[in-house]
């Protein structure tokens, strides 16, 4: 382990000891403000503790094999043992309706239906309870509920933020991926592997339609904020990767790895070298839009299309001879890549091809990009080109060079294309727009081979790669973004890239290139060949795309001294955290090494992923994790209240195939989960904050659950799964730059809240008021605030009114009898019947005008159910 440089240890705070628990007076205030915050205040951080000693911290220790104390349910054994020590018994079972409501909210995020109430009955047996659990776990709404928890960890959003809040095209598909994965109970280790390296699996997981599921998880890397025209592109790269490492560390490992950016971690066994080792993995990876359904170029269908392309072209130009590229490079030109040399002895260039548009090798000879055009054009480009049109123009793909240093002022690129794009990506920065980066993006609309020249004086010495894009999805902040998707007929060709001190491109011999076919006088066999080319192309499925990771050149970073990218220190070869990977396996040179990283993260010797995950499940089911600081198991995090239970749950989880549903079932069938939540006088002194779980916790419904519940009880809920996000109504969007430009209805079409568009700069106001987190970092534990804006929303928001009116109409239609109406309203809103004590004021309220009919009747009942919606019983889950 490298010893930290003394300078790197300069304290971040004037006196780190002051960062320790506040004095009693402060503590007192915090109690008043936030009782549960009191949980064992953090133990003193071992600042300056030698790295080796930091390994003694509990979280680094392997999972222990623990035998649960004897009990009917293993979870209860652990809990009861701790309660016994303070002379407490668990609370009795919650009332049946409370149990049911709790289960529904926690498992599917919706209120129980009247049918479920009936099914569950007044005296449910354990078997009835288990059946309900299993039904909920099997329902598609389970995935919608739990996906939202996961999205919080990934800071899910559909835009890049900053000045113009550019869209991250197709980001919503990731949300659907998570919902599907949870509904299918994808083993969590596979889920993690796909997040880290889903694009690199030799056998990606596919859905029944053949869509690649695995690659979709890697979209999560791109929910990072991106700046519009940063003056320092390297600084921006460092900031982006910092956020990506932060999320990686917190979400999968429960570790604040990113704290080691400027110095060795102040408290945990994470030297700054580790941080830059991880940095290299991300630096070696690139943003692409990945196809969900690539057709492998070696497959029969793809090869058939290529053959038909040849046949058609050969018929047309039977005597076509190979044409030389005609390019003469000068001595000073640094050839970065040249398709002419592909697979030849001269070829040192590495190409990075994603998706299937470009096939597996450059193309030589004539081709027809759009055979179905009125006047199909046969074209021949001189020499070999990576060409996206040979198997039809609807294929999606990018081809890119290796990452290279910008040594000379000019980059010359030989290209051709139609409605496509060429980009020079400097320091991984994709938003190639004015004012600074506009010239790094070129629209390619010239179908003859030609040179494009980039002047890179501003970035001399930086790392770059050249990318040719033929995809319908616009790029990040695409200057042509107003056009929406790119048309079907676009294609691009890329031959060579050189970095040169000359401002003019290399000498090139000119050649005739275009033959226009006149099919009006076409021979039948041409028409036939054209038809079979069209058929072969049409047989290849067109694929949607998703933001994803793709491998670039393997790059090892250097430590940035004090986090300053202008001060590179020693090299930091790519490898996993040294504390968890004693073998110190470094990543291969040719690839990013993310697959190896995924394997290290999921190594049996790493206790973090299962421990962190089961703790998250516990958090969502009790409102507090066994480790309260769910995203930080480090020395500054909280200690586990039940370390044995935590390890037992983690073992039980991995022993059952990393099944999230199994572990949830395990927990919710415990008495501990099912017990009552009301406060107990006998526990005030010994367990006032309920750390030891002498009762369940009372919790407010989360933003999404609250809105979804209103939709459900009003009958407005559209239970449709998946799809593009629903935008906000126009008048709900503030007048600022980057306004979405498309808008949706007030009630979001009745769709569940997880389908509402999450735009960084235009977050849904109502959900924000109820603590939907801003997507900037991993949030495993949301704030639960209590602000007037919430009460105002429930009292006055037009949406709430609209839904209450629907709710009222629903109960009016149910019966003419007031008591029966109220019974239905209560079942929907509270999952129970109203008591006699409640019936009295309710009947008085709705009976104020016994004979009211029509609008007046609706008004009275709307007010009544609105009053119910404003009660705390409605807003809280007991």
């Amino acid at each position: 382990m490298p010893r930290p440089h003394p300078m790197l240890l300069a304290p971040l705070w004037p006196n780190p000891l002051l960062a320790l628990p506040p004095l009693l007076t402060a503590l007192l205030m915090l109690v008043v403000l936030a009782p549960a915050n009191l949980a064992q205040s953090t133990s003193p951080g071992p600042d300056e503790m030698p790295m080796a000693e930091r390994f003694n911290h509990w979280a680094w220790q392997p999972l222990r094999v623990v035998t649960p104390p004897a009990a009917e349910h293993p979870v209860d054994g652990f809990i009861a043992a701790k309660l016994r020590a303070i002379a407490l018994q668990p609370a009795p079972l919650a009332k049946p309706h409370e149990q049911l409501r709790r289960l529904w909210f926690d498992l599917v995020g919706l209120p129980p239906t009247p049918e479920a109430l009936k099914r569950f009955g007044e005296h449910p047996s354990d078997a009835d309870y288990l059946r309900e659990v299993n039904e909920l776990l099997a329902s598609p709404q389970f995935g919608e509920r739990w996906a939202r928890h996961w999205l919080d960890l990934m800071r899910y959003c559909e835009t890049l933020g900053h000045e113009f809040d550019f869209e991250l095209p197709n980001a919503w598909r990731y949300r659907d991926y998570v919902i599907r994965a949870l509904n299918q109970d994808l083993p969590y280790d596979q889920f993690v592997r796909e997040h880290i390296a889903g694009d690199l699996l030799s056998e990606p997981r596919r859905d029944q339609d053949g869509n690649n599921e695995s690659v979709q998880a890697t979209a999560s890397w791109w929910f990072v904020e991106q700046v519009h025209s940063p003056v320092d592109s390297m600084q921006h790269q460092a900031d982006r990767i910092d956020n990506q490492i932060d999320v990686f560390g917190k979400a999968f490992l429960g570790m604040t790895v990113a704290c080691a950016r400027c110095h060795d971690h102040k408290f945990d066994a994470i030297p700054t070298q580790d941080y830059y080792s991880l940095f290299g993995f991300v630096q070696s990876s690139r943003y692409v839009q990945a196809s969900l359904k690539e057709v492998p170029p070696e497959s029969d269908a793809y090869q058939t299309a290529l053959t038909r392309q040849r046949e058609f072209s050969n018929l047309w130009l039977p005597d076509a001879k190979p044409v030389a590229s005609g390019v003469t490079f000068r001595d000073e030109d640094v050839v970065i890549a040249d398709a002419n040399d592909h697979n030849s002895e001269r070829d040192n260039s590495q190409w990075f091809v994603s998706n299937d548009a470009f096939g597996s090798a450059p193309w030589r000879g004539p081709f027809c990009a759009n055979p179905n055009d009125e006047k199909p054009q046969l074209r021949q480009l001189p020499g070999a080109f990576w060409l996206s049109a040979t198997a039809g123009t609807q294929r999606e793909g990018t081809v890119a060079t290796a990452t290279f240093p910008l040594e000379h002022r000019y980059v010359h690129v030989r290209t051709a294309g139609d409605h496509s794009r060429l980009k020079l990506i400097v320091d991984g920065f994709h938003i190639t727009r004015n004012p600074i980066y506009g010239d790094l993006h070129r629209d390619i609309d010239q179908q003859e081979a030609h040179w494009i020249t980039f002047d890179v004086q501003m970035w001399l010495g930086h790392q770059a790669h050249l990318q040719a894009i033929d995809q319908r999805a616009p790029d990040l902040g695409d200057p042509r973004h107003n056009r929406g998707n790119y048309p079907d007929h676009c294609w691009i060709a890329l031959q060579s890239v050189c970095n040169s001190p000359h401002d003019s491109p290399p000498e090139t011999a000119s050649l005739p290139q275009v033959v226009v076919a006149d099919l009006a006088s076409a021979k039948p066999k041409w028409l036939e060949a054209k038809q079979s080319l069209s058929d072969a192309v049409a047989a290849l499925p067109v694929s949607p795309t998703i933001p994803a990771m793709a491998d670039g050149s393997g790059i090892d970073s250097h430590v940035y001294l004090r986090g300053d990218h202008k001060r590179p220190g020693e090299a930091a070869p790519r490898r996993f955290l040294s504390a968890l990977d004693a073998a110190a396996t470094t990543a291969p040179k040719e690839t990013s090494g993310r697959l190896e990283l995924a394997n290290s993260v999921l190594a049996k010797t790493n206790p973090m992923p299962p421990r962190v995950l089961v703790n998250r499940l516990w958090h969502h089911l009790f409102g507090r994790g066994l480790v309260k600081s769910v995203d930080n198991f480090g020395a500054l995090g909280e200690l586990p209240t039940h370390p044995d239970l935590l390890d037992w749950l983690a073992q039980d989880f991995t022993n059952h195939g990393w099944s999230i549903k199994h572990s949830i079932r395990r927990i919710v069938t415990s008495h501990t989960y099912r017990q009552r939540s009301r406060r107990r006088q006998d526990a005030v002194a010994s367990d006032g904050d309920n750390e030891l779980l002498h009762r369940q916790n009372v919790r407010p419904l989360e933003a999404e659950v609250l809105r979804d519940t209103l939709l459900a009880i009003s009958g407005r809920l559209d239970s449709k799964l998946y799809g593009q996000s629903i935008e906000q109504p126009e008048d709900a969007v503030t007048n600022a730059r980057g306004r979405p430009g498309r808008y949706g209805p007030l009630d979001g079409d009745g769709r569940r809240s997880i389908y509402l568009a999450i735009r960084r700069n235009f977050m849904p106001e109502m959900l924000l008021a109820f603590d939907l987190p801003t997507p900037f970092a991993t949030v495993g534990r949301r704030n639960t605030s209590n602000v007037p804006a919430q009460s105002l929303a429930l009292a006055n928001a037009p949406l709430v009114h609209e839904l209450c009116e629907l709710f009222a109409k629903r109960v009016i239609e149910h019966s003419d009898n007031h008591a029966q109406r109220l019974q239905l309203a209560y079942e929907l809103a509270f999952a129970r019947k109203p008591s006699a004590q409640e019936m009295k004021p309710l009947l008085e309220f709705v009976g104020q005008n016994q004979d009211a009919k029509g609008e007046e009747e609706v008004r009275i009942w709307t007010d009544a159910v609105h009053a119910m919606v404003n009660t705390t019983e409605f807003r809280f889950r007991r």
Partner: protein
Amino acid sequence: MLRQAANGFAMLPLAHLLGRDASAQTVASNGSLGNNTIATDGNDGSLVRHHAPRARSIIFLYMDGAPSGQDLFDYKERLVKENGKPFGLPKEPTQFNKAGNTLGPVAKFKQHGESGQWISDLLPNLAKSADKLCVVRSMYADFSEHTNANYFLHTGHGLQGRPSMGAWIGYGLGSDAKNLPAFCVLNGGLVPPGGVDNFHSGFLPAHSQGSLFRMEGDAVANIKPLESDARQRKQLGLTRRLNQIAIEADGHDPAIDAAIANHELAFRMQTAVPDLLEIDGESEATREMYGCNDEYEHTRTYGRQCLLARRLVERGVRFVEVTMPDTGSDRWDQHGKLKRGLDRNCKTVDKPVAALLADLEARGLLDETIVVFGGEFGRTPFAQGSDGRDHNPFGFTMWMAGGGFKAGTSYGATDEYGYKAEQNPMSIHDLHATLLWQLGIDHERFVYRFGGRDLRLTDVYGNVVRDLLA
């Protein structure tokens, strides 16, 4: 004893609820306030107080888009003399990369008041207040793009997600206002680049985020009841009754008690907010002074904002931010048509800001209220194109007034072109540290633990600039 405090929560005055959401419900907040060697539960409900405060509230007149000091406050003879000539110093890379020749101020400057402050003729009313101002001509920022710089100015950090200074202050000090949030944003119509995150609570509890008051339509989201008062009262009565029955059945729970109190409070806010916004009760002279009757519509809007700012601090609101109306010149971001943009914007703010200072002083509020005027960075002393100025984070002007800042003072200086801060450079973190200091807070001890780190408004930087303080 602690337990009693928690149980007794429901008895806390409502001001606590609004001011700090004392709601036991902050329960699962992501972090906690750490490191306050002195924490008080003083009568003002503050969490933090390290020393006796010199000021009680802040009004931040946020000049979105970055006004040019060279045209307004930072007079440089060389700029006048060398107007149109090649720029005499090396130029840093700029946002638009179209740096041209030296560009002199678009209007004349004069010295004003006993203090002899240089102020442009574009600000005739403000010029009369010269002796109230503490002008810092040596500000610098770390970012030259709006969004980063906006986040930086507001949160001390260039990326999204940190709490705004108003949120920090509101969280730490609570609110003296009975029915209003501690951090209010009077939105003139434009939300600055970076969006409402400039006013966000970040990792602090949600209640500390800035409440946006719009100048058009409903000032506060959902503040207007959709049913008649009688209907709503009846409804509230039923809700109360049902809540009560539930408590009788299930017992008290602090979270639920807090929610109930909150509900009641929201109901009362429905009256408090319209009362605040109703400025007809102000004298004709006052409204006239603020420009509420001005013929230029943006002066009217900004005048109303400034008047409301006074009414807010009068009611005990801790931090008021006033943003720009849309004058049709893209905020203060004059990459071109410099003169036109400055004319419009100056006309918009000049009269109202001068009135605000005078009014606060007349009511004895200026002593305890800090007025801060400035943008996220400055502009280049050389032209962008022919008649614009590009972004310049290296040197710019801000001023403070009241709240214990030295009146009629100039501090720091840029070089002879007004390009870079040269004498006594003052950072954004220094500004934050100094503002906090005046409120009785030591910025180094005001930290909040989040994600495993103790975070503060000033990151790991910042010094209190005592030379500015009376």
